[in-house]
């Protein structure tokens, strides 16, 4: 009987080979080698920066010398509740909520049509047609709207030729919505926000509707529901997670924006423009840091609400 000596995998070979073997035998070593660079980058640069910023929110800003001293104080956070600052927060928050609701209303039919009535090439076409404006330059989209809404611009041309001027004047006359012209009104700013964030709402809703089995709709019809009842009691409740997921983007992105409020709409600060102004022209980094906490806290609250609606499963 001859014994065939099975060659033991030799520990020799090229250094590279030995190194590969070592990594294979020690998955934890392998894992940590993969993880160290991204963790270092994110831990040191990103989380480190966030903590630095929050910490500076406790620093003291001297109004007379315009200097920041590292004396810890809660004054900056308390100042957020002064009426003038609190107004800014309310103004931003209400815009974020209204924009989210309007985006959901405009996005729903697009998402619904995409999910239920398109297949193959048409579906791909819709998908790309929604993705392209989503990725198209943010600043150029905002610029396009300043062109659209400007005096003598496209919007005005259409309004004139459709004979809608009295209607526009009426709408612009409503306090809290209007303004002197379309490009300096709340309405104009609201339209720009809805436009820019709309694709972020369409895609999650479409994804949630895509998962809805057609047999459910047939069952609902078999059980005698009218189309309207099926929509209200089956389709809409099941699309709530998608709407909630989309609203995370519309809400959070509106909350932190400072470019659109600067380009379109009436004067008056948004949280984002306040942060920008405080750190820039005024040089009050502690107050800017305190203001930055506002969107963070609001988004955290918002996330805890939409989590109950199942938003995270629809992301």
């Amino acid at each position, binding site marked *: 009987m001859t014994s065939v000596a099975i060659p033991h995998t030799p520990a020799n070979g090229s250094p590279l080979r030995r*190194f590969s073997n070592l990594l294979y035998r020690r998955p934890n070593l392998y894992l940590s080698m993969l993880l160290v660079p991204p963790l270092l980058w994110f*831990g040191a640069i990103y989380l480190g920066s*966030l903590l630095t910023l929050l910490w500076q929110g406790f620093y003291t800003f001297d109004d007379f010398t315009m200097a920041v001293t590292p004396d810890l104080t809660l004054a900056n956070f308390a100042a957020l509740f002064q009426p003038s600052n609190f107004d800014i927060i309310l103004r931003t928050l209400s815009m974020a909520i209204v924009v989210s609701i309007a985006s959901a209303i405009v996005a729903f039919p*697009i998402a619904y049509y995409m999910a239920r009535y398109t297949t193959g090439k048409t579906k791909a076409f819709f998908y790309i047609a929604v993705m392209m404006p989503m990725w198209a*330059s943010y600043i150029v989209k905002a610029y*396009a709207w300043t062109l659209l809404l400007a005096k003598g611009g496209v919007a005005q041309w259409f309004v004139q030729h459709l004979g809608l001027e009295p209607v526009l004047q009426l709408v612009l006359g409503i306090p809290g919505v209007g303004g002197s012209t379309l490009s300096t009104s709340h309405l104009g700013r609201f339209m720009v926000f809805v*436009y820019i964030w709309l694709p972020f709402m369409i895609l999650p809703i479409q994804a949630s509707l895509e998962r809805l089995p057609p047999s459910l709709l047939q069952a609902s019809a078999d059980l005698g529901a009218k189309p309207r009842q099926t929509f209200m009691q089956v389709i809409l409740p099941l699309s709530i997670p998608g709407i909630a997921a989309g609203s995370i983007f519309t809400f959070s*992105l509106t909350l*932190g924006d400072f470019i659109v409020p600067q380009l379109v709409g009436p004067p008056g600060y948004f949280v984002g423009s306040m942060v920008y102004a405080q750190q820039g022209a005024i040089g009050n980094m502690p107050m800017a840091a305190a203001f930055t906490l506002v969107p963070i806290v609001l988004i955290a609250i918002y996330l805890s609400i939409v989590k109950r609606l199942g938003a995270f499963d629809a992301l």
Partner: protein
Amino acid sequence: MHSEKASFGLKIAAWGGLVFLHFPILIIFLYAFNTEDAAFSFPPKGFTLKWIGVAFSRPDVLEAIKLSLQIASIATLIAMVLGTLASAALYRRDFFGKQGISLMLILPIALPGIITGIALLATFKTLGIEPGMFTIIVGHATFCVVIVYNNVIARLRRTSHSLIEASMDLGADGWQTFRYIILPNLGSALLAGGMLAFALSFDEIIVTTFTAGHERTLPLWLLNQLSRPRDVPVTNVVAMLVMIVTMLPILGAYYLTRGGESVAGSGGK
């Protein structure tokens, strides 16, 4: 009840929505060829290619384009390395803190850009780092990682791990396995992620506003033009250019990742 045909109203709302999404983009293309040199007046008076030449002979425009291209390229490279490493680490094994790490990767695009921007600025100031091209790249790379990560991890999840084991069993070392097995499998996903990251970086303005110092990227140049409407035609041409550079990658990424789950771009900016 559920008829196979969409109702007329739904069709109008859906196709109307698409028109709404694309109309402002068309306007940009329209105005770039407008003969008038002052106003935003509509409809445009005539068609000309003159402004394209004018825009590309402006040194400030060329400088801004060059800077933006450099920043986007370097930020994309960093994001591709870090994003691939992170996805390779996270796609298969479960370990303590995994959820936290994936949340951390997503945070820079989930939180408004202003938070990332001012946090980085506060840190650079504290450390005494002068804002400039380097600080812009650091900011951009940070939020681009997740784009690459999303694309690559989706591909890794669909690739069988036994391929790698087979390669190693057949005597390939780590580098050979990476070069001949892993990389060809990841290739198109990595490219798609890289293209999207490039587009995102090329167009980014909010984080950049805080980290740019005196440097002026193309979006910052644009924003600056808007508050001082001096040469509208040149602005219009640059706007069209930025639009094209950011829209083409999504087409490319779509064709590269087609056939799998929809990965390209999902997850927002």
